[in-house]
């Protein structure tokens, strides 16, 4: 088991390292930030002085190693635009994104758990088809479009909920729905097939035959076991929502990391883009690691594989 954990952790670290190279190189190709930071009539001497100050005159591999050695100590440089340490900026914006992603995850579970459980119980019924339809719809709509529709109906039309910003708890409802609808299909499928397996098992039949009420049987005895695959995948859903929140955050003017990265992109604010995407990758890898390890704990076959 220790070897398995060690190998997975090393693999994860390698992925992050690779991702950092890709992110660094690609952002460097996107043009000279100094041109955007200084007025066009700035003298040449000033431009080159600025480049030197930011270390942009060095060869790219040297810039990368500087970036890496600083990053390990938590120093991601200063934002060109906000004139503050990137880490501080991220620390300021990340909580809003985590809050939004958590709310979206809660929303998706509020749909997918009843959908999955009841679809399995009433297999082939109209409810089964209805749940599948709602779930498939979520996969067929861009999340930002769902967001815009929600704004039209609930913010502009009915004036029930605010459309922009993050001042009150009410503000999170619409963006959370927009972000949380997409994974419903996958989650419902997992819960449904796990429930079908469990419902077929002897202990459930046994329980039914000795007269355990159907509701207790389904929710207490069956669902608790059927939830295992969903729980192990939870980290992945959460991470993918963190990583996918860019457009939704832009639509709702949500003060999170996603919108910050998009804005930084347009401003060629390299350090912010690099660190923002790297953080997203880090959470992605960490979530996958947790899933792998929890599967390894449950299933020894995976642990010993290769």
């Amino acid at each position, binding site marked *: 088991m220790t070897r398995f954990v060690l190998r997975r952790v090393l*693999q*994860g670290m*390698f*992925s*992050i390292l*690779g*991702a950092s190279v*890709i*992110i660094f190189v*690609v*952002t460097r*190709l*996107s*043009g000279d930030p100094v041109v955007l930071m200084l007025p066009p009539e700035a003298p040449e001497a000033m431009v080159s002085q600025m480049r030197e100050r930011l270390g942009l005159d060095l060869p790219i591999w040297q810039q990368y190693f500087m970036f890496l050695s600083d990053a390990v100590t938590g120093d991601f440089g200063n934002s060109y635009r906000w004139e503050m340490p990137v880490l501080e900026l991220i620390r300021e914006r990340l909580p809003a994104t985590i809050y939004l992603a958590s709310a979206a995850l809660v929303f998706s579970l509020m749909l997918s758990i009843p959908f999955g459980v009841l679809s399995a119980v009433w297999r082939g019924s109209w409810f089964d088809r209805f749940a599948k339809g709602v779930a*498939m*719809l979520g*996969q*067929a*709509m*861009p999340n*930002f*479009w769902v967001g*815009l*529709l929600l*704004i*039209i109906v609930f913010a*502009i*039309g009915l004036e029930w909920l605010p459309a922009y910003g993050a001042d009150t708890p009410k503000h999170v409802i619409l963006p959370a729905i927009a972000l949380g609808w997409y994974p419903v299909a996958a989650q419902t499928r997992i819960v449904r097939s796990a429930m079908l397996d469990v419902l077929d098992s002897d202990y459930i039949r046994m329980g039914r035959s000795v007269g355990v009420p159907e509701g207790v049987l389904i929710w207490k005895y069956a669902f608790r076991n059927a939830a295992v695959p969903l729980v192990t995948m939870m980290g992945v859903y959460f*991470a*993918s929502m*963190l*990583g*996918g929140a*860019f*457009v939704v955050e*832009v*639509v709702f003017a949500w003060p999170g990391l996603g919108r910050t*990265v*998009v804005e930084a*992109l*347009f401003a060629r604010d390299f350090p912010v*883009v690099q660190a*923002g*995407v790297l953080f*997203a*990758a880090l959470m*992605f*890898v960490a979530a*996958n690691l947790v899933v792998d390890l929890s599967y390894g704990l449950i299933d020894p076959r995976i642990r010993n594989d290769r």
Partner: protein
Amino acid sequence: MTADATDLPQGTRPSLLMRLPGRDFPWISVTILVGVLLLAFIGPWVSPWQPQALDLRSAFNPPVWVEGGSWAHPLGTDNLGRDILSRIIAGTRISVIVAFWAIVLSGALGTLIGMIAGYFGGWADIVIMRLVDIQLSIPPLALALILAAVLDPGLQTVVIVIVVTYWSWYARIVRGEILSLREREYVALARIAGCGPVTIFTRHLAPNIVNTLLVLATLQVGQVIIFEASLSFLGLGIQTPQISWGVMLADARGYITNAWWAITMPGIAIMLTCLASNLFGDWLRDVLDPRRKQL
């Protein structure tokens, strides 16, 4: 191939095309997909208006079923009086072009890489799979955003971004398939008979993964269309004189309080196309390979 225990005598197995219709054939989805494809080609001839034609006097006309709407603009007009139906029709072309090139190129690249990793194994496999891991560790949209910002925005960039994002998808699945096919006797026999890797790939391995690729490609259509819309919406994809559904949404966001239909209609086009291709892909998967429900 999949040797179902059908009671048909040898040699009379109906061809794939013959077997396709029948069992829950998704007629509505296929009709929508064929319709989108057709409109992409004949759009300019059936479109009621010029998609770029301005007419400020009829700006913000609502759709025909809303009070104040008329049959002249069945789905309404935008802030510049441009006909939304005509613009949606014009947008099908971009969607089809993007989907076609993105899927063909990412599928070809991913398949080739996956075949190499699966067939040769060893170092090639390790290097390729680590690359796939790295690729998968960056959230797709995040990678797309930084790439789109580097390259000049436009159709080509959208295709490149999607290829870079999705090749690993194909590579991983093809590798898995090849790993199991490689051990089959006929592959070993072909190798002993002196066939080179190219012959083994094209004659003996490729035909066995065609079904998988077909299903993957169909299921990718919806994702590609949403990807394009997201990039264009952020201003990193298709640019304004060109018309795509994502561009229409980006434009319409500016006057969301005045014209809900300018947001709703292009989105419905996206939704229907995605829904149709997802349903068709699901059906195809069930028909082509009933053993693998979880692709």
